[in-house]
């Protein structure tokens, strides 16, 4: 899939899962997906200044009836940790986290973030699944939404570069 096709596939998965408010902060690899979010008229899109505020915005929206998703890089997930612990986990709030997996195998620049991402999710008891194929997105999103609603805890989908239709840099430069 091209990045555009992958973005459309992931976004249609979010719509099919009933997501109607999405808080985002850009990463270059998420650009296509955020374009889809922005272009949709029915979804409330909240562009953030810092990811932690997005945890609050999604919590408020959930409390009055919205199904929400937060889209961010793993750096943003680290930024959000206090809110995840003392709001999402402490109050049993469901939230679908779509996290770009910077520093994943073959991805340059943020290998330290990559190495800490899954251990931190695990330490917080947040169930997480790595998405590698864009075509898996609708099914994975549907299942993750069921799990987050049923467990009343956040669930994370880690979006790798190839899941967004982009090639991981495998050649040395």
């Amino acid at each position, binding site marked *: 899939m091209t990045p555009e096709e992958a973005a459309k596939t992931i976004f249609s998965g979010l719509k099919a899962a009933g997501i109607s*408010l999405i808080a985002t902060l850009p990463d270059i690899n998420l650009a296509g997906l955020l374009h889809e979010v922005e272009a949709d008229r029915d979804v*409330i899109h*909240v*562009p*953030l*200044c*810092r990811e*932690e*505020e*997005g*945890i*609050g*915005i*999604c*919590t*408020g*929206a*959930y*409390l*009055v*009836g*919205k199904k*929400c998703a937060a889209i961010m890089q793993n750096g943003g997930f680290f930024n959000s940790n*206090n*809110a995840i612990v*003392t*709001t999402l986990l*402490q*109050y*049993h*709030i469901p939230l679908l986290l779509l996290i770009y997996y910077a520093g994943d195998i073959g991805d340059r620049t943020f290998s330290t973030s990559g190495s800490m991402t899954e251990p931190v999710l695990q330490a917080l008891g947040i169930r997480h699944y790595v998405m590698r194929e864009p075509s898996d997105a609708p099914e994975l999103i549907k299942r993750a939404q069921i799990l987050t*609603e*049923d467990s009343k805890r956040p669930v994370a989908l880690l979006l790798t570069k190839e899941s967004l239709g982009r090639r991981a840099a495998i050649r040395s430069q």
Partner: protein
Amino acid sequence: MKRFDCLGMIAKGATDALVVTSAGAVTLEWNAVRPSDGNFRVRTLGLCSSIALGMALSLPQRKVIALDGDGSLLMNLCSLPTMARMRPKNLVHIVFDNEVYEASGSKKTATATGTDLVGIARAAGIGRAVWTHSVDEFAKIATEALNGHELFFIGAKVTTERTEVPPYPIDEVENKYRFIRYVEKTEKIAILRTNLPSSYS
């Protein structure tokens, strides 16, 4: 000006508004002034304004009030540009600025040395952002904000004087359920669904 007196003024005009209260004594005082399942207590310092924003955007026909503090807002200043950007007409953001981290030993916040939260709100793009200096002035502005249809930011310089009130009666999870049930009832919508095994459905 005492925070407790200002809260009494808000309660007069708040009627069925959803109210989000910041971590700290404001939660307990507000609960004493207006006990309601439509109150949501925040435990993450800073998140009050963001949780209220999420509610206001998702329920545009309902008034939402954030009762924030200076220490809290200073930790989440970026909620102001996001609020200004989304511009919900049903949100009133009130900040009680007593210039200290009252719940954490009363060390001074940055507003004690001149940081102007209303100035920051205006510079962030919130058109209606005003300071109030007396209970009468606060009551007038709060009434205008609660009856109006635009995003409003109100700063209130208050003393550190606390009012003796009962402890908060419920824990976080009960607060969540009661709040959601209150929204379901008053908005006549279904939010929570029970998870019966498929053989029962």
